[in-house]
């Protein structure tokens, strides 16, 4: 029997390595939906912190490690530093008949 549920992925970017710090960025990829993911269309984060997502049933599956700063590169800034991946499972929507 085919596995019916699909993975939903929530990525939260936080202001620090603490899961209870504020969200500064977010992304959602929903395997249960046929909607095209969009960039830049939301002004409100779905959660105020990583902890709020946990309390709503999301499971943390990956967190950015804390990495020491290479000599000579201490002040370089690049990617969003505190990235947390969450998942949950959902029954597909808009797939009637499949």
């Amino acid at each position, binding site marked *: 029997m085919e596995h019916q549920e699909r993975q939903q992925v929530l990525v939260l*970017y936080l202001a620090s390595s603490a899961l209870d710090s504020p969200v*500064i*960025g977010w*992304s959602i990829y929903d395997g249960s939906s046929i909607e095209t993911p969009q960039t*830049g269309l*939301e002004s409100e984060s779905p959660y105020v912190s990583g902890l709020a997502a946990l309390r709503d049933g999301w499971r943390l599956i990956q967190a950015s490690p804390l990495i020491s700063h290479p000599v000579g590169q201490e002040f*370089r800034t690049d990617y969003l530093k505190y990235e947390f991946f969450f998942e949950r499972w959902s029954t597909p929507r808009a797939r009637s008949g499949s």
Partner: protein
Amino acid sequence: MIKLNSQQMAKFVAEGYLRFDGVVPRALNEQLLARFQSVDPSHHGNLRDYYHEAVDQRVLPIGASGLPLDQVFDDEPLFYALLAVPEIEGAICSLLGEAPRFDHHFLHVTLTPETRTRMQLPAAAQHNHQDSTIDPDLAFDIQLFYFPQAVTEAMGGTRFLPGSHLRTVSEAAIARYQNIVGQQHVVCPAGSVFIFHKGLWHGGGLNTSQMMRYLYKIRLAPGGSQVRQWDTSDLAPIDDRQGPTFWREAGGGSVVQQILMRPQPWFEYDVGRLELINRIKLWRYLLGDPAADVDYWLTRLERPQLIDRGASL
């Protein structure tokens, strides 16, 4: 020309962009828009065919990268006039100095839903990205984003993230960042020009209107010194003076210093401080002053080492 003042330069250093709303005269907007629309994407089956014809028809002139800017548009009075708008010419000169060089230009067309569907393109906004490639140099190019039409929210104006320009990333590696607190979208009157630092994170929006949205983008590089090329007559001694740090009255420091130290809402707590340090490094570069500082961020790190004073370890 109308050069930038020091507060505008400080804003560019801190936020990575400047906007000039409606500075291009209406007649010039109409002439340039007609030029851009002279090849119609809705008459083509896919984007590649459209761009082939647009290039063949010289909707934009073809110019070699690296040429002095004043040699690129000799026979193109419309483009010459665009870059000679006093506010635009002054901003280019203020940021790049004299004799800037042409890097490249491009016509970005954000399609209507009907044309997008017919071309079988996804109804999705462009991912966030940083243009060109990894480029950690303090010397910087600028990119002019010229909108000949009024851009409404529905037309999917360019999205950008103020203050992201000093982050060294690799082009589309940031594509999975869908939303960031503080992101902005271009909504502007006809004839507006946005000037982005080379590193500013951005992406095209999704056009849900019934009008094609046209964006003419041109990238320019410095041809010489970028030091103190703006109108520095408003720089005051207080702009260089180090005041109290942390424990001080609200609103301390000059306006230029306040602009330089204004954080973005998306900065991580610790990385935000590094952003301020990197802004001061860029400000030093533009001032030609290796000792300039605000809020003691770099001076603190530049204290003499005991080993330099003859101490043994």
